[in-house]
């Protein structure tokens, strides 16, 4: 039935388009040049004015329809059914009525409830028809109104463009408001956390043991919420991954842009970008099942004690994941350096290597750094690989062979399982999230700044 409502809006809009177009032509007896706007715009104006408000109306209707039906239903309950019952109990009855109306019987319902269920179904059906009918009526009213406005001097094109402007503004607002909403909820929950744990302890504490007593009076360790070991772990793994990704990605980009024959490049470049399409969970089990055991064995062979969930295994696999990031952004940056610069360096008798080192890389450096920073913020925020391959215990160490944990891993472990949303253990996840958000935001802003600055240079 909702489909029918939307279909009728679509049909009415289409009708509006054709009628509006014909009408504008009829007004000037087919002499197009006497119209202010082209007939198409008159048609589009009518169609948009029918389509958008009516769609909004239907959406609003759908949003409120069930609460209206509910209150109507409660109003129609007989007095002895509701008397002496609290609002919640009435709600329970309502739920029972609804499930019976939907045909889910657990036992034979009382005749009163059965009646109510029938009423409910009737109401829902009625509302559906009313929806379609009112949508059509509104559309028709708008059609008549807009048609009456069409004249040879009517500025239909400006009208259409204004509406399209509005649609675009609306879309960008959705993106902005969502981000704002996320930030606000992070901040609010973090503030709740900081009211239980002082923020200097969170920022500068060296211990991360987010255990708290489950019930009152239980003998348990007091939790410690020092974020430093968690963030060192994150930075350690991210650092290792960049150590892997940056040289490999950069050299691959240099090879692809400077040395590879065009046919080989056409083959390798998509292949490299294919690497970016591998789901991180696949990298994750690759890390935990292949790389980590191999490293442990290899370490044992040369007398190194490498933990089974060492930072180096997780970091190395994450580095592989980041290669396409670095390589494709560096590739873009290097390709954007004008051929004339390379040519003139070669023309001065520099070798290809000298040209790359002295001219190409310095000129492309801002773009390359931008790419690396984007990869870094990706590495810091990456979750799946580290959840699978990194440790859970926050050790404050820079030794890549030990197990460390990361911010994302901690957030995941804090929030899975049974959690109450009023204790510092759960709330600390928001504080971690907020801090992580700030760090990656900072990196992204710097990266975008650098990339922008470099764009101005050659355009």
């Amino acid at each position, binding site marked *: 039935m909702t489909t029918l409502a939307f279909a009728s809006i679509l049909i009415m809009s289409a009708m509006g388009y054709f009628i509006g177009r014909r009408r504008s032509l009829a007004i000037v007896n087919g002499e197009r040049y006497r119209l202010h706007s082209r007939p198409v715009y008159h048609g589009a104006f009518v169609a948009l004015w029918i389509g958008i408000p009516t769609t909004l109306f239907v959406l609003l209707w759908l949003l409120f329809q069930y609460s209206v039906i509910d209150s109507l239903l409660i109003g129609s309950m007989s007095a002895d059914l509701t008397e002496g019952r609290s609002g919640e109990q009435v709600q329970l009855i309502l739920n029972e009525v609804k499930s019976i109306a939907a045909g889910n019987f657990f036992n034979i319902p009382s005749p009163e409830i059965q009646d109510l269920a029938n009423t409910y179904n009737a109401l829902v059906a009625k509302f559906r028809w009313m929806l379609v009918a009112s949508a059509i009526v509104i559309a028709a009213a708008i059609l008549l109104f807009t048609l009456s406005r069409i004249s040879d001097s009517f500025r239909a094109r400006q009208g259409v463009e204004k509406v399209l402007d509005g649609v675009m503004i609306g879309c960008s607002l959705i993106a902005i408001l969502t981000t704002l909403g996320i930030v606000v909820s992070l901040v609010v929950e973090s503030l709740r956390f900081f009211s239980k744990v002082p923020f200097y302890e969170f920022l500068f504490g060296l211990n991360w043991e987010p255990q708290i007593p489950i019930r009152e009076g239980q003998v348990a360790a007091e939790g410690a919420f020092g974020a430093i070991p968690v963030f060192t772990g994150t930075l350690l793994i991210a650092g290792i991954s960049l150590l892997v990704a940056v040289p490999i990605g950069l050299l691959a980009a240099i090879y692809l842009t400077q040395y590879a024959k065009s046919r080989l490049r056409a083959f390798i470049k998509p292949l490299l970008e294919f690497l970016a399409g591998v789901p991180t969970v696949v990298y994750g089990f690759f890390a935990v099942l292949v790389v980590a055991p191999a490293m442990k064995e290899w370490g044992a062979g040369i007398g190194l004690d490498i933990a089974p969930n060492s930072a180096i295994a997780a970091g190395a696999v994450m580095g592989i994941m980041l290669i396409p990031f670095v390589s494709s952004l560096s590739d873009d940056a290097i390709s954007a350096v004008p051929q*004339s610069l390379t*040519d003139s360096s*070669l*023309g001065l008798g520099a070798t290809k290597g000298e040209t790359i080192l002295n001219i190409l890389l310095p000129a492309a450096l801002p773009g390359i750094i931008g790419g690396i920073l984007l990869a870094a913020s990706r590495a810091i925020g990456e979750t799946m690989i580290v959840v699978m391959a990194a440790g859970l215990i926050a050790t404050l160490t820079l030794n890549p062979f030990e197990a460390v944990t990361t911010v994302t891993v901690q957030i995941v472990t804090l929030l899975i399982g049974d959690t109450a949303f009023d204790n510092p253990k759960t709330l600390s996840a928001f504080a971690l999230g907020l801090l992580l958000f700030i760090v990656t935001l900072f990196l992204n802003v710097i990266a975008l700044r650098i990339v922008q600055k470099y764009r101005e240079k050659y355009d």
Partner: protein
Amino acid sequence: MEPNMSTEYLDIANLENSNVEQGRPRSEAAETPDITLDTDLKFRARNIDVFYDTNQALFDVSLDIGDNAITALIGPSGCGKTTFLRCLNRMNDVIDICRVTGSVELDGDEIYTDKVDPVLLRARVGMVFQKPNPFPKSIFDNVAYGPKIHGLAADKTELEEIVVNSLKKAGLFDEVKDRLAEPGTGLSGGQQQRLCIARAIATQPEAILMDEPCSALDPIATARIEELMGELKESLAIVIVTHSMQQAARVSQRTAFFHLGTLVECGETEQIFTNPHDDRTQSYITGRIG
């Protein structure tokens, strides 16, 4: 491939040098440049064919280029003049789909042989491009780039000397002497192009190839560059590709006209512009084709 080709060429060169008129038919003009050089021979190109993949861009071009003179290459767009220019310092080698056959001699030595490293060749034969393209480095470093790479300066003072001299020769020194540390990209278009010329002469080349060096410049900057070319030709050979026939007429001593990948006609500039032998040259310089 005729076996006696090379000796034949030698003979021709001798003929040219001794100012003997060759009564050869016009169809062989491409193979045997018919105009005597007033100066020593710098480049001697013979039977140059250039292919981009399967497209042939140059057809059997043979051309002599004299030392201490400016040779202008003219012709409509896509006629192969830039391609020919880039054969003279093996810049076409950097394009991997590009294949060059034939022979180019520089001071009597073949450059298309395994014995010649194109990298060193390009230090001897400098190049200036259409668009002024200073490196995103300081003015000083732009000019010092070549000498540094080729180890021309033993120490810092020597390097400074080279840079200052090159800037002076390019007529740029007085304008930039107070801001050598500033980026070369901050100069005006004409200054940038003179910086590129300074950069090219800093490696002390024997010849400079210029690919439409003034097409992005205003008339005043153009006049400045043309004047500079006149000064530079005293010490080296200059080959310039240009779309401006006035420029070719103003600056060059010899002019070669290319059309559709072939060398149509080559001769003294005055003769080409006043009394061309070929109808196509006539049509081009009077603006009927191009």
